[in-house]
């Protein structure tokens, strides 16, 4: 463990370790206990408060959440607190890795940050009390000062930090009552927005180093392809071009500025080695996945409640439908880039927009053939992540280029590489079956999903044969619906297409499968889809409250103008329960989303406006995917390589109104970055099906005709 001292930037500072228990999936499976990730809360001699944290800020507002928790519990003004992403080091690691994901940012950090801040407060107060020879109980810490009202003495926390650092930290400090919290639960401005609104250089792509050159990647368009060779002379006519370098997966063309490097990349005559999948296309992948839906194809069981076979046999009828979704690109607005500079001691400095610091640092070290200690990774703010920056596929080429040209290098991908290199949300199919009795009650559900294993593609160790890929059944396996039989299984259909978690991960496709199917079942049984869900959730007051709240606010069952319909969906993910109702019509054969009402039970809330912001963003991104997103695969590569054929949702297609209702149930705090996304696709699909009477069993909606 790193000692306190290593985080003390100046003398006379107080540093408190923040210990956060994060149970890893592996540890959970092995029946193991919590692992601890640490951050360091530093109170400097000038009174400034800094959290050195392993968390990454990619727009989700985590750093503001942490600053608010600290400011409140410690007793300082919010402006005094800053949160910085630390360089990778042991205390910040979980499973040997430092990274951000899983909507952990606030929910797992809330209590530990409060405790550490309270510990700091108690030793600061004790230091002042000892100095003034008054009882600590008569002193308070407010606005960054310890105050003794009786003697009207006051001292800033900076001046007390050195004395406080010599005191033992209390094991169980008293937390402030809610009435003393100034920021928690209120609308607090985000700490990172001023520079973003002023256009200040905060992103990796804005990093400048003296003597820096620019390197544009030319990578194999076929997934996983390797360089065969290139014609070095082909770039000579381009002004400003300096060199071309062979890198993992292709080449990099180096120039004195971005445009020179881009022009050089266009001019470079490059050849790639053939791969076994040079003719792979989307139709083949679809056919292979659908073939694995057949019962005789072996599958891994993920959930077995009751006896599906018996329930199906006894059923008055069995409703069945097959669904399919395509690969999706994360498409963060900032294409991949990083800046590499090797200093006089051979230490490799990298400024990069990454969510997984160790994974990237290790990849950089391996590429350079140096131990990881020789790599210093500086995490900038991210121009979007959504899971794409969990990968490390862009860093080795940057390091190789910097070593070759022996100058600081800004290495970048064009948008075409950002789309083309993959690491997509998996394509997947599902066969859904429901057993109904004569009264139209659901007595059983059976789900088989089939597709490539995300965990095999994304994790270094892969997924052994016969094991379950959790995300392929995510949210269905854990569904709160409790018919008397519920069977869930998954059939593996590996593909050579790289995949990574995409915001909300398996809940994106599985939420759509299950929730669209529930509406199909309701139609088949001539039942109201809300009433059917109520029946399936009758045992679960918390879930019932969520769907009751959203339908009441949305006016479920009340008349709508002609040509409009409502659809609803309920999906739980990352510890939060989320239900949405969408109000939809058709204009010129295209769906128009007039209104979305969202009810989110995330337990409790630190930043109400931050939650609303994440709900809005999740709904817009989820609607974007549902409306038009798909990575089409042709000849072993992505056919869609820019926004002209991979359409992100534009302003005019955005919902006209989004209303967010946050339910503070007081249950364990859940995530908010991901849970609002999955329900929107099925809510819109269900509204469209209500309008047209036709189910929608494939996304995106742009593939369907609503004329």
């Amino acid at each position, binding site marked *: 463990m790193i000692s306190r001292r290593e985080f003390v930037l100046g003398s006379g500072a107080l540093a408190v370790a923040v210990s956060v228990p994060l149970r890893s999936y592996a540890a959970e499976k092995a029946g193991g206990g919590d692992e601890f990730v640490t951050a360091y809360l530093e109170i400097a001699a000038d009174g400034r408060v800094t959290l050195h944290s392993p968390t990454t800020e990619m727009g*989700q*507002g985590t750093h503001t959440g942490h600053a608010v928790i600290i400011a409140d519990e410690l007793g300082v003004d919010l402006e005094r607190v800053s949160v910085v992403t630390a360089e990778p080091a042991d205390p910040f690691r979980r499973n040997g890795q430092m990274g951000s994901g899983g909507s952990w940012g606030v929910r797992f950090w809330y209590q530990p940050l409060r405790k550490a801040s309270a510990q700091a407060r108690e030793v600061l107060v004790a230091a002042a009390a000892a100095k003034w020879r008054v009882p600590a109980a008569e002193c308070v810490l407010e606005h960054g000062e310890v105050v003794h009202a009786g003697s009207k003495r006051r001292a800033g926390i900076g001046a007390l930090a050195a004395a406080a650092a010599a005191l033992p930290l209390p094991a169980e400090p008293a937390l402030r009552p809610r009435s003393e919290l100034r920021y928690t639960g209120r609308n607090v401005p985000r700490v990172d927005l*001023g520079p973003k609104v002023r256009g200040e250089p905060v992103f990796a792509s804005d990093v400048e180093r003296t003597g820096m050159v620019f390197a544009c990647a030319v990578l194999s368009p076929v997934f996983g392809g390797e360089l065969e060779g290139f014609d070095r002379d082909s770039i000579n006519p381009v002004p400003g071009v300096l060199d071309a370098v062979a890198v993992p997966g292709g080449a990099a063309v180096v120039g004195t500025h971005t445009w020179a490097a881009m022009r050089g990349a266009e001019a470079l005559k490059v050849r790639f080695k053939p791969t076994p999948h040079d003719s792979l296309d989307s139709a083949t992948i679809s056919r292979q996945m659908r073939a694995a839906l057949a019962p005789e194809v072996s599958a891994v069981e993920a959930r077995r409640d009751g006896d599906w076979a018996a329930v199906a046999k006894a059923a008055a009828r069995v409703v069945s439908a097959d669904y399919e979704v395509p690969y999706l690109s994360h498409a963060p*607005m900032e294409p991949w880039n990083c800046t590499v500079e090797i200093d006089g001691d051979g230490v490799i400095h990298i400024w990069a927009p990454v969510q997984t610091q160790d994974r990237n640092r290790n990849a950089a070290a391996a590429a350079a053939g140096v131990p990881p200690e020789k790599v210093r990774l500086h995490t900038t703010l991210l121009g*979007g992540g959504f899971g794409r920056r969990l990968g490390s596929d862009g860093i080795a080429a940057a390091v190789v280029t910097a070593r070759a040209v022996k100058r600081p290098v800004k290495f970048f991908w064009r*948008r075409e590489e950002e789309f083309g290199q993959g690491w997509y949300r998996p394509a997947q199919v599902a066969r859904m079956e429901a057993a109904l009795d004569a009264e139209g009650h659901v007595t059983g559900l059976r789900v088989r999903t089939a597709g490539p294993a995300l965990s095999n593609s994304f994790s270094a160790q892969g997924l052994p044969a016969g094991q379950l890929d959790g995300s392929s059944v995510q949210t269905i396996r854990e569904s709160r619906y409790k018919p008397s039989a519920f069977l869930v299984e998954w059939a593996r259909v590996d593909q050579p297409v790289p995949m990574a978690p995409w915001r909300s991960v398996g809940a994106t496709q599985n939420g759509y499968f299950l929730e669209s199917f529930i509406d199909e079942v309701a139609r088949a049984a001539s039942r109201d889809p809300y009433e059917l869900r109520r029946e399936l959730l009758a045992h679960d007051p918390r879930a019932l409250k969520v769907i009751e709240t959203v339908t009441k606010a949305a006016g479920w069952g009340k008349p709508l103008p002609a040509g409009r319909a409502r659809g609803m969906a309920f999906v739980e993910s990352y510890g939060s329960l989320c239900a949405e109702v969408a109000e939809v019509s058709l204009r010129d054969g295209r769906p128009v989303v007039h209104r979305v009402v969202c009810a989110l039970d995330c337990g409790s809330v630190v930043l109400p406006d931050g939650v609303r912001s994440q709900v809005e*963003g999740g709904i817009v991104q989820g609607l974007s995917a549902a409306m038009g997103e798909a990575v089409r695969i042709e000849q072993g590569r992505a056919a869609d390589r*820019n926004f002209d054929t991979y359409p992100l949702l534009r*302003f*005019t297609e955005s919902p006209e109104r989004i209303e967010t209702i946050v339910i503070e149930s007081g249950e364990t705090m859940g995530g908010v970055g991901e849970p609002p996304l999955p329900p929107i696709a099925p809510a819109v699909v269900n509204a469209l099906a209500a309008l047209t009477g036709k189910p929608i069993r494939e996304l995106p909606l742009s593939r369907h005709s609503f004329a």
Partner: protein
Amino acid sequence: MQITLKVNGQVRSIDADPDMPLLWALRDFLGLKGAKYGCGIAACGACTVQVNGRAMRSCVVPLKSVANAEIRSIEGLAGQHPVQQAWLEEQVPQCGYCQTGQIMQAVTLLEQNPNPTREEIRAGMEGVLCRCGTYPRIEAAIRRAADAMTTKKAGSP
């Protein structure tokens, strides 16, 4: 070749390829990092700046076409523009990468149409993509800025 540009009221001279897009002159030659690269084909709007008062996608505007033009980038707003104030009040950005383009598009929209309807705002902002999904807040911020600018104008002698 030597090209003279007028950026944010200042005359700047650079030695560059006349076919180079304006975006790279701003970012790599003039150190103005506010405009962003997103697509290179005028499809995302992250690079939006004003040229003679019109919103342009600087990733496809060749330098030779703007040699005598008035160019205005986010830096020219100096953080003081009512649109920037409204952006903070509505807490618009998430990751923030597209927001300088959004703001320059919004400033242009309000200069051309000081009191836009909701449909005009949505149509006017169509060309700038946001992956984080901040559209609802952008709409609210433009409405707020429009109100603030109209009130200010009405109140001045």
